[in-house]
């Protein structure tokens, strides 16, 4: 039974342990994806369907018909009469427990029925109404633009300054090198939440409060990035640099044309980390940005849920839109991302 705790290679028959394994994996897949699928399916439902308890899995919507003589489309019902016959009729209005129905084929004749006699005609419809309304109410494009600016600029800056520092720390002997490296690694464990107040002061003094730069710059000198890139650059042979120097290349040219291209895999890993950190960052943008037009998606989404307590149909649609970009990136790069993280063991 406890066989599954150890590595078992080269088995051909499906043992009890194997079955337990696949059961675990199946259950795990359900637990991991279930909530997300539920979110996505729910985001296509209209308000009435969302308020329904118990909920149905697929997004149903009541069908409507345009009846001559009425400006608005009318809701369609199946009406069961006393004699057992059924007819599809549109509802003109409802008064108490009585509904005034009309047959779309005979728009002049109004029939009064008890509301219990009618059943709504429904069909599955993935409606984009929530998305359309949400995007205008939520200022989605503005937040998206802010998030993209922050993520791209911060990642570019991080890659540049971290790789420059890593190059110096891995390829030069100079005074203070050990101190600088030690300090960098030492603060690996200093989260921004511990120095929130003073960093906020520094930002305010510089005048970066309520400015996207104030979100971008402070987190750029990542210890993780310096460490990761330095370890990688140490494996690049010094002879390459020496022969370039003999050819008359400057140190800057060596950095840009030899070190950076060779360190591409490590740079790619750091880029993925950085995109992940910045796209999902919440606490720091929340503190720096108080003007709504500067909000990133995460801060915007959180304030959106505060403003609209119960308007779930909009919140759900906006949540889907917020998780979409990172999901697409993951779908394309998942193998590379998982290997990269397993390799460096950092986040």
């Amino acid at each position, binding site marked *: 039974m406890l066989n599954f705790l150890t590595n078992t290679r080269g088995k051909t028959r499906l043992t009890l342990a194997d079955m337990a394994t696949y059961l675990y994996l199946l259950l795990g897949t359900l637990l991991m994806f279930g909530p997300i699928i539920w979110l996505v399916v729910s985001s296509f439902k209209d308000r009435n369907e969302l308020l329904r308890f118990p909920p149905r899995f697929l997004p149903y919507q009541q069908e409507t018909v345009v009846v001559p003589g009425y400006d608005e489309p009318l809701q369609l019902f199946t009406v069961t009469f006393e004699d057992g016959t059924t007819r599809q009729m549109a509802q003109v209005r409802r008064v108490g427990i009585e509904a005034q129905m009309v047959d779309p084929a005979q728009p002049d004749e109004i029939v009064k029925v008890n509301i219990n006699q009618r059943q709504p005609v429904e069909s599955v419809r993935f409606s984009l109404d929530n998305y359309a309304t949400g995007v205008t109410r939520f200022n989605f494009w503005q937040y998206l633009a802010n998030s993209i600016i922050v993520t791209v600029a911060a990642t570019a800056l991080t890659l540049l300054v971290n790789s420059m520092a890593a190059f110096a720390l891995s390829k030069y002997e100079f005074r203070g090198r050990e101190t600088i490296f030690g300090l960098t690694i030492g603060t690996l464990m200093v989260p921004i939440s511990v120095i929130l107040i003073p960093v906020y002061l520094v930002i305010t003094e510089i005048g970066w409060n309520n400015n996207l730069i104030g979100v971008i710059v402070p987190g750029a000198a990542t210890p993780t990035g310096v460490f990761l890139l330095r370890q990688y650059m140490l494996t690049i042979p010094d002879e390459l640099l020496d022969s370039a120097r003999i050819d008359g290349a400057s140190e800057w040219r060596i950095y840009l044309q030899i070190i950076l291209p060779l360190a591409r895999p490590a740079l790619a890993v750091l880029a993925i980390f950085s995109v992940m950190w910045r796209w999902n960052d919440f606490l720091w943008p929340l503190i720096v940005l108080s003007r709504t037009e500067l909000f990133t998606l995460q801060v915007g989404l959180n304030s959106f849920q505060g403003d609209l307590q119960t308007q779930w149909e909009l919140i759900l649609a906006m949540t889907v839109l917020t998780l979409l970009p990172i999901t697409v990136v993951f779908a394309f790069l998942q193998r590379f991302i*998982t290997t990269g993280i397993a390799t460096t063991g950092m986040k």
Partner: protein
Amino acid sequence: MISFLEYNMIKLNTFFSADFLAAPLRMVYDALVSVMDFIMHPLQNLVGVRGMAYIFVLPNLLIFGIFILFPMLLNFYYAFTGGSRLFPQDRPFVGLDNLNRLFTCQDFLSPNTCREDLFWRAATNTVTFVFLQVALLVLVSLVTALILNRNIQARGFFRSVFFYPVLLSPVVVALIWKWILQQDGVLNAIIVSLGGEKLPFLISADWARFWVIVISVWAQMGFYTLILLAGLQSIPGELYEAASMDGAGAVQAFRAITIPLLMPTMLVVLVLSLIRAVQAFDQVFAFTGGGPGTATTYMVQYIFTVGFASPAREFGLAAAASLVMAAVLLLLTAGQLRLGRTSNLA
């Protein structure tokens, strides 16, 4: 550890062997390099090769110094000054007043008797959360890693399945679960259809605490599973073959090979998950807002509330609380590194 890192980097290298800098892009890049070299070459003649090293570290060092190192020192100043003004020159020195306020309690076990009762509530909430969350997180990650390490089909797929929630932002995770757990949500519907009664998942303090833990484990476990899986895969398979030839059973092999050889990785996982748990904020903030009442208010939210979200803006008190938190983090990290050194494996 380094050789393992290098080994995987080589694997990544082959993965990325397709040249993504196509020829025209490369020409643009080379032209850019030449233009920049026009400035950098004279600079190098001026400061020398060794001087260039300082120029290379300078940008990173500046950002690091201004936004990490200097604030770390400044935090002490804030902790020992009072008032609600942000700029240091406007703040009167109050000595240990802030720390005293935090630690004024008649009975340290009941937060109600403390002057800063919210601080102690947050502290006790955080301790309980950290303890339970890390335990559950490590357990679930370990079991999942062990299962993924078996000889299974589609390992890459399942690895990605467990990893996917890691990428989701804390706010998104919070909203996904809020939607499931609300009073008329799908989980309550399932319970009712099984003949039960609706449960107050977001209304009762205990349920809220429970779900905060479950959700953070859901969102983070894939990350630690990956690290543990990498650790498991670096254990040579021959060890298990030798053990089974010597007649060792599965349990024995697990205890004699897997556990000791996985220890260094476990230590990394423990350090990282503990540090993250102590800082828990964004996901909980978006999920419960710290409530109901103060049931899920943790340390970082206390700092945020006192310093930024309350009208009084007590920066000194918030900074003092940060110091306490930093001290705890330092102790935790040091303790674990020591643990690692004595076992001589980290």
